[in-house]
């Protein structure tokens, strides 16, 4: 047995490409006519970022703690994971070495090596090395081994003299080996051994650094900042587009949002020194202040930070930015990951009732516990987690709190937050709800809703997703849609544009999807979706979902066929619907569904009966002066629409057809009618002695009269017939559509369906 939807999907097997498709493919030149010039700058940058963030996301996943650790595995500190494996290409095999630190993968280099008894040269990263060649490893740290080598050992050499053979043994990498050396730069040699092949050595320039003091940061990589001032002049949050500007630093690369364009580039930083190698980006629109910011970023020579504030300076001036995640927020977000409690923001502002938060979902924990750091600050409390994210207000007094996911067998690391006293604001509620929502996809897989409420607009919900995490899509799950989803896709991983999504007003949840790369959450379908509300104070949105539990499919005329009302696109669509769709009562309200100015493909009209949606007609379109629409969603028993039984397609029919009394009153001048074969037989007689069989998606052209059909009427088949129209109308058709096929083509193209 098969579910109905599966059978429907299999029907797609009846769709075939054009018969001459292969000839066209075989004879065309690739990238032929009609191709625009490549947008090299953005494409190249986006691809580069996609590759970079894919690697970062993959590495992040691999570094997450798991419940099944073996003795000797890393439990804290930095892990420098070396992977040695045998690659293959054709019948050849060759060794490959990579080093993964903080989620970034680096490829090891060798001068040459002996493999399968032969000496092999290899592209070589020659000294002296540049600052960016060194992989930063923060102490405490260990080197661990993965892959398929029989064994491997590691040595650290001074970067200037490692070829002389000096160095410090780190030992056999049977277990993670601690890196117990003074901070500084080294070349790490990894010598792998494969019994059947050889024992090549690979080299990685690394820089060992001390862990920074609490709050301070030693590297920009992995940090995200929101611009707050240029040359110490604060950004006007409301009046300046730079008010939403931010920049995120990865290893040697950065990307961000200037308020109206996304941008990206490469940078080098050695200690406090800083230099940028070009800034690329989109050119969606001019942005006040963007040029000034980019001038300072592009010419910067140094940076300083106390962990929460970043100052970048150079000859063009300076800018200051606040660490994202360090600013006080109104809504606390806690997620429970394997082995760790993740708090996205360290400071949260309390209300009179406590701290509003979004927690979970359950998966790696059952509850979130809150324990005051100082005993006098209050009692312990907790929030139970559900299958989806849980919104709750937790009674936390101002002060420092330990937050810990709990209720699972394994130990889960806690996090700390600071609860700040309630702030007084003068913002009115109306002003507080923006009409453009902001959602961020973080590289750790989480979704951050910066605007818990968004006011809908006439064409839908406007969202901006200034993310550089590698996420490929954003899915919106409106409560009004049972298990339904609307997805905004950003296939290149970085998206700067705003999105207009046609989703119902009301509560919903959103979740970032990793459509192009590995999902960093590793939780597949259980990824957390975060609540958001699309508010609709003006009642712009009309629900276009049926109120009844049992939906059936009906048709304006006959199955799969569009309704046509030729030459009547000036007629209000509700009137056309009343005429074209049987069973619509005079007391029914026919009005738009969804949003009034939605993009055409999302438009819908609904039939409201006794205050409830009884039918929905989607995507009605005016094609060549003809309104057309496909199947109708109706409530069972409503009597709206034809339930699939063939009718004569009487829109515009000039004929009195027995059993088909409906007639379009707007069609007095129309003489085009579509009927099925059996209806043709019913009609018979003199009226329809002239008819033309057409393919169902064709437009029929006539001159002064029509072509007598000999090719239709195969037993059991369905043939669409177009009957004659008046000479005037035919002339209009001929001119409009530039008909050029011969009558013989009509027969060969006629589709007879069994």
């Amino acid at each position, binding site marked *: *047995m*098969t*579910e*109905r*939807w599966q059978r*429907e*999907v299999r029907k*797609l*097997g*009846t*769709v075939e*490409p054009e018969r001459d*498709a*292969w000839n066209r*493919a*075989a004879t*065309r*030149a*690739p*990238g*032929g006519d*009609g*191709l*625009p010039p*490549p947008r*090299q700058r953005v494409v190249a940058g986006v691809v580069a970022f996609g590759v970079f963030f894919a690697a970062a996301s993959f590495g992040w996943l691999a570094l997450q703690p798991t419940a099944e650790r073996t003795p000797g595995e890393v439990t804290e500190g930095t892990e420098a994971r070396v992977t040695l494996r045998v690659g293959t290409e054709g019948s050849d095999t060759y060794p490959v070495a990579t080093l993964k630190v903080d989620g970034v993968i680096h490829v090891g280099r060798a001068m040459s090596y002996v493999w399968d008894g032969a000496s092999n040269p290899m592209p070589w990263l020659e000294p002296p090395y540049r600052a960016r060649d060194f992989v930063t490893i923060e102490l405490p740290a260990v080197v661990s081994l993965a892959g398929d080598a029989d064994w491997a050992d590691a040595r650290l050499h001074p970067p200037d003299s490692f070829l002389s053979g000096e160095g410090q043994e780190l030992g056999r990498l049977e277990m993670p080996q601690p890196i117990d050396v003074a901070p500084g730069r080294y070349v790490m040699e990894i010598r792998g051994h494969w019994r059947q092949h050889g024992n090549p050595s690979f080299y990685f320039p690394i820089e060992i650094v001390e862990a920074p003091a609490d709050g301070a940061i030693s590297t920009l990589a992995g940090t995200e900042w929101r611009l707050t001032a240029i040359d110490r002049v604060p950004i006007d949050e409301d009046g300046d587009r730079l008010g939403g500007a931010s920049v995120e630093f990865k290893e040697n690369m950065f990307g961000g949002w200037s308020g109206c364009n996304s941008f990206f580039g490469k940078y080098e930083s050695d200690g406090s020194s800083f230099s940028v190698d070009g800034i690329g980006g989109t050119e969606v629109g001019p942005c006040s202040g963007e040029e000034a910011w980019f001038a300072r970023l592009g010419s910067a020579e140094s940076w300083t930070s106390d962990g929460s504030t970043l100052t970048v300076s150079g000859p063009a001036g300076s800018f200051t930015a606040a660490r994202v995640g360090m600013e006080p927020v109104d809504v606390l977000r806690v997620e429970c990951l394997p082995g760790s409690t993740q708090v996205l923001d360290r400071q949260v502002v309390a209300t009179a009732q406590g701290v509003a938060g979004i927690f979970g979902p359950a998966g790696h924990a059952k509850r979130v516990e809150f324990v005051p750091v100082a005993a006098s600050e209050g009692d312990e409390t907790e929030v139970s987690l559900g299958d989806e994210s849980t919104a709750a207000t937790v009674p936390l007094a101002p002060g420092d709190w330990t937050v810990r996911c709990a209720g699972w067998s394994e130990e889960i690391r806690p996090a700390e937050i600071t609860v700040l006293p309630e702030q007084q604001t003068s913002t009115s509620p109306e002003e507080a709800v923006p009409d453009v929502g902001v959602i961020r996809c973080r590289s750790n897989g989480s979704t951050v809703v910066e605007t818990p409420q968004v006011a809908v607009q006439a064409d839908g919900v406007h969202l901006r997703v200034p993310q550089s995490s590698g996420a*490929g899509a954003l*899915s919106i799950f409106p409560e009004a849609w*049972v298990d339904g989803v609307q*997805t905004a*896709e950003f*296939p290149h991983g970085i998206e700067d544009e705003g999105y207009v999504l046609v989703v119902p007003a009301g509560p919903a949840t959103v979740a970032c*999807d990793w*459509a*192009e*790369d590995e*999902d960093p959450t590793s939780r*597949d379908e259980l990824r957390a979706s975060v609540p958001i509300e699309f508010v609709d104070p003006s009642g712009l949105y009309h629900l276009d979902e049926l109120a009844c539990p049992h939906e059936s499919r009906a048709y304006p005329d006959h*199955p*799969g*066929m569009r309704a046509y009302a030729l030459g009547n696109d000036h007629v209000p669509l509700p009137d056309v619907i009343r005429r074209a769709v049987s069973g619509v009562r005079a007391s029914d309200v026919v009005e738009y569904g969804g949003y009034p100015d939605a993009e*055409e493909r999302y438009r819908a009209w609904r039939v409201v009966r006794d205050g409830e949606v009884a039918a929905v007609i989607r*995507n009605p379109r005016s*094609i060549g002066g003809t309104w057309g629409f496909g*199947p109708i969603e109706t409530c069972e028993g409503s009597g709206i629409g034809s339930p699939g039984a063939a009718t004569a397609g009487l829109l515009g029919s000039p004929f009195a057809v027995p059993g088909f009394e409906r007639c379009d009153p707007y069609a007095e001048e129309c003489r085009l009618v579509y009927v099925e074969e059996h209806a043709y037989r019913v009609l018979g007689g003199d009226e329809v002695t002239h008819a033309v069989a*057409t*393919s*169902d*998606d*064709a437009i029929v*052209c006539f001159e002064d*009269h029509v*072509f007598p059909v000999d090719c239709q009427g195969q037993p059991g088949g369905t043939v669409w017939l177009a009957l004659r129209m008046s000479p005037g109308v035919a002339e209009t058709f*001929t001119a409009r*559509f530039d*008909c050029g*096929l011969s009558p013989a083509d*009509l027969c060969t*193209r006629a589709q007879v*369906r069994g």
Partner: protein
Amino acid sequence: VHATLMMAPVKERAIDERAAASDAEPVSAGAVARHDFERVYRDHGPGLFRAIFAYTGGRRDIADEVVSEAFARAIAHDADIREPVPYLFRTAFRLAAKELRSERRRPASEPDMPADPPEVAGLLAGLRRLSPNQRAAIVLRYEADLPVDEVARRMGIAAVTVRVHIHRGRARLRELLGAEEVDEP
């Protein structure tokens, strides 16, 4: 007596030729890889067309153009392609995504799309309520009967992501098209 018939015109599609360039899989220097693309088309062309047809929500014009372009590129890069089928699918998906995106950015114009084939009109209406990737994953999994790993290989995305797309797409189609069990025709 004269009557003529005209199919809806197929627009020249603006497709960025660079979009699929990264899919060519280089092989070692000097290697020669020759493929019988006519046979590949016979075996996989219709399936590729249906996948793109679904991915684009029933846009036959884009599917025709994209499949032709993908094969044209594959033929041009014959020696560089190790496995033509994944190459063709990934190239076609990228081209189709590019085209859909560029269409959204173009000013609205008079719609000229033909009506859906009646056999699949209901299905297409349902598929249009899904995202393009969900449509493609559903069709490759349930129409072409490919395992998830193969769907992922052809779409050029991770298997875990394919499972998410299938999960969400399946749930939506159940709702739209019906979940009751029926006999196979």
